[in-house]
C-alpha cells in the first residue's frame, strides 16, 4: 500500500512537475516513472537497461498527438545513465502585434512567432549506498523568435511597405545537481537545484531579452513517504512559492501491479490557487510499464490570451506554464535487460571463521559466514545462499534455503564443505558468496578474502582435536592391531574384564617407547600432527601425543575423551581419559586407590571406570596414569575445575 504526498515551491512556476504525476510507487520502482524535471538527481532503481517512450495528445482547438519523449537508461553497478530526446517538450506562440500594414495587394497583421524547445537531456547518478545517491542533469534548450517587421520602400513615384523577419535564436544548456537520501525504505527525500549552471550559446538581443525562458535559480525539495505498503504520499516545494501534493494507491492485478495516483499543484503564476491536477494510472509487470496520465488545468486555456502578462512575467517552464494546454500522456517503459533482473540483493557478508581443512565437519554444521540479503520484490521468495572458495572447493556449495518476506532484510548462513582437506600451505584465498532465487544464475554475489589454513592448523579448541583423531583411523587401527597381535597370547589369558585395560597399557607402553616430547613448531597458529605424522616423527606436544594415542585407541573401539586443562596464562594442556569398561565395583581389579579413577555414566546410564593418562609422560604406563590422576584430582576435583569450567572433558565419538 503506497500513499504519495508531494510538496514543491518555486518562485516561478512549477518547473519540477513532469507528466508522470504521481505514478511512481514501490511496486513499479524498477521503471523510471519520473523525468528530468522532477528527478534532477536521477535516483532510480532501474536494474539494467530501459527504454521509455511517451506520446502526448493535446487539445488546442484541435486534437494533436505527437511523440513527447524517448529515453533510454542504463545502470552499470552503482552508476546510472539517462538520455532523453524530447521533441514534444516544445511550445509555440503566435503574437498578433496589433499592427496592420497596408501592403501593395493586401493588409497584413504583423506577427511574432516564439518557438521554445527542450531538445534533449541527460542525467547521471551515483549510488554511494542504498541510503544515498548523488546525481546531475544537463538539458539543452533551443529558442527561436521571429518578429515580422514593416519596412518602407520608396521611389520617386511610389511608396510601399514590405514585411521582413527579424530572427533571434537563443540556445542554452541548463545544468543542475541533486541528492536523494533514503534513511528508511519508506521514506525518501530529494533536494535539487533549479537552473544552477547556465551556458548560453547565442548572443542576446531585444527579442531574447523579452521572450527568453526565465531561468531564475532556486531549490526544490521533495518527500516520498509510504505509511502503508500500498499507499504513498509525496510532496514537493520549490523556493519562492509553488508546491504540489499527491498520493497513489497500488494493488496487484494479474501478473503486475496497478497504481492509481493523483497530484494537485499550486503555481505562483497560474490561476486559480490550485492551478491543476495530474491524474495517473500505471500498470507494471517485470517486463514493461504503461502509464496513462494527463494534466488538467482549472483555468480556461482555450481563450486567446494577452501577451502583456507574458512580457511582464515570462514563462519558466516549457511544459507547464500559464499557456499550457490540457494534455494526455501515454508512456510505455520497456525493460531491455539482457541480464537477469535482481530479485534479491546481497548487501554484505561477514566471515566468522577462517578455514581449517581438517575441521571440515564443523563447517558443515556451523556457518563460517553470515550474509545480509534484502528482498527487492513485493512477494515472498526463497533464497538459496551458496559459496565457492578457491583451492578449497571444486564446485559451488549450497546452503539451506531461507524465506524472505517482501522487501525484508534477513541474515543468511553460509556453510562450506571442504573438498581438498590436504592443503599444505596456509594462504589468503577468495571466497565468492552468492544468493539466488531459483536454479538460474545467482541474483547477486560478493567476493571476499578468506584465510585458508593448512591441514595441520587447529583453531585451539580442544573439542576440535576430535577431527584430527578421526582423520587417520586406518593408520591408527593398523598400528594398534599390529602391536596387540604381538601380545595375543598374553591377552588371551587374562580376565576378559581387564582386556581393555591391558590393551591400553600395552599400547601405551609401546607407543611411548620411541616418543619424545617436542614443542609446537609455530607460535602464531596452533599446529596439530596427524597420528601417522606423530608416529613417523616420533614425537610431539601434548596435543599431538593425545591425538595420536586417542586415535590408536578409538580405532580399535576403546572409548577415550580429552581432558582440557585451561590455564589463565593462556598455555593449556590436554591429556586423556580412557574408558576401561569396568564397573565401579570391579575397581580393585586395577587399583585400590579411588583417586586414580573417574566414574562416568555410559549411554545406557551405567557407571564405568575411566582412567586418566598423561600422554606426555613417556616413562611408563603407571607413571602416566598416576601423573594424570594426580592432576585431574587436583585441578578438576579439588579446585572445582569441572564446575568452574577450567577443566573440560570432551568425549571423542
Amino acid at each position, binding site marked *: 500500500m503506497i500513499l504519495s504526498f508531494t510538496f514543491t515551491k518555486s518562485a516561478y512556476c512549477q518547473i519540477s512537475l513532469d507528466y508522470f504525476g504521481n505514478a511512481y510507487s514501490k511496486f513499479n520502482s524498477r521503471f523510471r516513472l519520473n523525468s528530468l524535471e522532477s528527478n534532477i538527481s536521477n535516483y532510480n532503481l532501474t536494474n539494467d537497461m530501459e527504454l521509455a517512450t511517451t506520446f502526448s495528445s493535446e487539445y488546442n482547438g484541435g*486534437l*494533436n498527438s505527437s*511523440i513527447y519523449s524517448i529515453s533510454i537508461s542504463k545502470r552499470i553497478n552503482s552508476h546510472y545513465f539517462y538520455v532523453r530526446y524530447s521533441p514534444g517538450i516544445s511550445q509555440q506562440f503566435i503574437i498578433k502585434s496589433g499592427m496592420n500594414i497596408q501592403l501593395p495587394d493586401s493588409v497584413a497583421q504583423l506577427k511574432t512567432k516564439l518557438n521554445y524547445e527542450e531538445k534533449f537531456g541527460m542525467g547521471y547518478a551515483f549510488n554511494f549506498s542504498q541510503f544515498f545517491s548523488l546525481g546531475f542533469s544537463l538539458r539543452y534548450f533551443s529558442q527561436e523568435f521571429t518578429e515580422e517587421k514593416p519596412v518602407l520602400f*520608396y521611389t*520617386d513615384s511610389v*511608396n510601399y511597405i514590405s514585411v521582413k523577419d527579424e530572427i533571434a535564436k537563443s540556445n542554452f544548456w541548463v545544468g543542475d545537481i541533486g541528492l536523494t537520501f533514503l534513511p528508511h525504505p519508506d521514506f525518501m527525500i530529494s533536494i535539487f537545484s533549479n537552473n544552477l549552471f547556465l551556458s548560453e550559446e547565442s548572443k542576446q538581443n531585444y527579442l531574447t531579452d523579452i521572450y527568453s525562458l526565465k531561468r531564475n535559480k532556486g531549490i526544490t525539495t521533495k518527500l516520498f513517504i509510504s505509511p502503508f505498503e500500498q499507499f504513498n504520499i509525496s510532496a514537493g516545494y520549490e523556493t519562492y512559492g509553488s508546491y504540489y501534493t499527491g498520493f497513489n494507491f497500488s494493488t496487484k492485478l494479474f501478473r503486475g501491479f496497478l497504481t492509481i495516483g493523483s497530484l494537485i499543484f499550486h503555481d505562483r503564476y497560474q490561476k486559480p490557487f490550485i492551478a491543476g491536477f495530474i491524474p495517473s494510472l500505471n500498470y507494471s509487470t*517485470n517486463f*514493461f510499464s504503461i502509464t496513462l496520465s494527463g494534466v488538467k488545468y482549472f483555468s480556461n486555456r482555450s481563450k*486567446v490570451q494577452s501577451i502583456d502578462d507574458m512580457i511582464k512575467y515570462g514563462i519558466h517552464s516549457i511544459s507547464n506554464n500559464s499557456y499550457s494546454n490540457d494534455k494526455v500522456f501515454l508512456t510505455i517503459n520497456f525493460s531491455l535487460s539482457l541480464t537477469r533482473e535482481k530479485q534479491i540483493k546481497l548487501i554484505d557478508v561477514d566471515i566468522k571463521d577462517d578455514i581449517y581443512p581438517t575441521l571440515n565437519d564443523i563447517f558443515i554444521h556451523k556457518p563460517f559466514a553470515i550474509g545480509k540479503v534484502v528482498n527487492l520484490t513485493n512477494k515472498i521468495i526463497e533464497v538459496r545462499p551458496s559459496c565457492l572458495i578457491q583451492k578449497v572447493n571444486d564446485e559451488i556449495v549450497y546452503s539451506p534455503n531461507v524465506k524472505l518476506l517482501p522487501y525484508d532484510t534477513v541474515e543468511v548462513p553460509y556453510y562450506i564443505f571442504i573438498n581438498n582437506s590436504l592443503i599444505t600451505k596456509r594462504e589468503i584465498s577468495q571466497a565468492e558468496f552468492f544468493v539466488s532465487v531459483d536454479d538460474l544464475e545467482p541474483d547477486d554475489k560478493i567476493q571476499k578474502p578468506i584465510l585458508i589454513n593448512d591441514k595441520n592448523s587447529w583453531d585451539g579448541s580442544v573439542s576440535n582435536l576430535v577431527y584430527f583423531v578421526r582423520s587417520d583411523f586406518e593408520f591408527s587401527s593398523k598400528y594398534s592391531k599390529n602391536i596387540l597381535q604381538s601380545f595375543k597370547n598374553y591377552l588371551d589369558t587374562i580376565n576378559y574384564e581387564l582386556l581393555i585395560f591391558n590393551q591400553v597399557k600395552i599400547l601405551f607402553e609401546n607407543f611411548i617407547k620411541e616418543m619424545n616430547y617436542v614443542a609446537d613448531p609455530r607460535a602464531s597458529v596452533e599446529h596439530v600432527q596427524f597420528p601417522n605424522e606423530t608416529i613417523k616423527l616420533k614425537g610431539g606436544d601434548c596435543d599431538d601425543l593425545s591425538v595420536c594415542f586417542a586415535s590408536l585407541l578409538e580405532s580399535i573401539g576403546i572409548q577415550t575423551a580429552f581432558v582440557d586443562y585451561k590455564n589463565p596464562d593462556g598455555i593449556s594442556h590436554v591429556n586423556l581419559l580412557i574408558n576401561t569398561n569396568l564397573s565401579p565395583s570391579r575397581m580393585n581389579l586395577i587399583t585400590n586407590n579411588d583417586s586414580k579413577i573417574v566414574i562416568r555414566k555410559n549411554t545406557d546410564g551405567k557407571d564405568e571406570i575411566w582412567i586418566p593418562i598423561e600422554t606426555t609422560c613417556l616413562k611408563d604406563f603407571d607413571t602416566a596414569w598416576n601423573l594424570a590422576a594426580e592432576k585431574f584430582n587436583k585441578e578438576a576435583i579439588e579446585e572445582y575445575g569441572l564446575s568452574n569450567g577450567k577443566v573440560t572433558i570432551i568425549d571423542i565419538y
Partner: protein
Amino acid sequence: MLLNNKGGILFPPFKILLCFIIMLFVISCGEPSPTELIFDNQSENNIQIEPAQSDNDANLNSSGYDTTGVVNPFLSKSTIINITGVRNTNYGMIQSEGYYYAIFNDKTKPIKIKNGKLIGYKSKVFSSVKFDNYEAVKIPNVIRFVDGMMVRDTVLGIKYFIKQRMMQNGQMHSFPFSSKVNIKIAADRNTFTQFDVAIPSEIVGKVSLEGNRLRKNLNLILEWNKKFDDNVEIIIARFRQNSNDTEPLLKLKGNEIGKIKLPYSILENIITPQNKFLIISFIRKYEKQINNIILDDTYIVAQSIHNIKIEIP
C-alpha cells in the same frame, strides 16, 4: 533480437505491445497548434499603417503636402473648403498659424499632363467667400507635380485664401479651436449659401525615441492629447534631398489611447547620414459635406495639425 529477462525470445504479448508502439509512432505525427496571444486593445502596439502616396492617378509625388505644411491631398471634388490650425515645432520653437481656403473645381475642365495623367481641374470663380465675415482673398492655385523627371509648378485657377498668423506673443487672432467657423459663399450678388463648420480641439503631439538602434529595438513613441470620439491621423514625412519640400511616407491611424509605438525598422532604410530629419504631423479633423443649389460634391474639412520636426540620431 530483444530478449526477455530470462534470456529467451520475447513472448507474444510483448510483441503485440511493440507493434502497438510502432503504430503509435506512425500516427503520432501531429504538430501542436501555436498558442495565440494578442496585445490588449489599449496597447500602444495597435497601429494601422499604410504608405502615404497620392491617391490620384497623376503621379503627383507632392501628395498635397503644400508649402504651408498642411497635408492636403489631391481630391477630385467640385468644392474643397479647408480650415486648418497649424502648430509647427522645430527644435523647441513653436509657431502657430491658421489657414482658411476654398477651391471650386470645374470638373468639366480637367487638366492633364503629357502622359494623360490628371493633375487637377480649372477653377470656377465665385463672387466672394467669407470665413467668420472675413473675406478671403483670391490667390493663384499653384500646384506642384512631377512631369517625367522634372518637378513643375502650374496654376490651375484661383483659390480663396486667408492666412491667420499667430505669434506666440501678441497674437492678433486666435484660431477658433473647439469652436465654429461660419462660412458664407456667394455665387453672385443674389445667390449665396451660408453654414457653420465645427473646428476640432487643438492637437498637441509629442515625439520621443525609445530603445537602442544598435540593439534594433529603437522605437518612435508618438503621443498626442487624446480626446473622446477622436479622429486622428499621423503623417510621417521626410525632406526631399537638397530641398525644403517634404515628402509624406506613412500614414498612421490614431488609436484609442493617444500613443503609438512605431518600430524603427519601418523607417531605418530612409534615414541616411545626409538626411536624418523626419516631419511627424498629427492631424485631428472634422469633415463635412453640403449639397445645395450652389455647392455639391463637397469636401469640407476643419483640422488641427501639429507638425514636429525631429532628428533621428
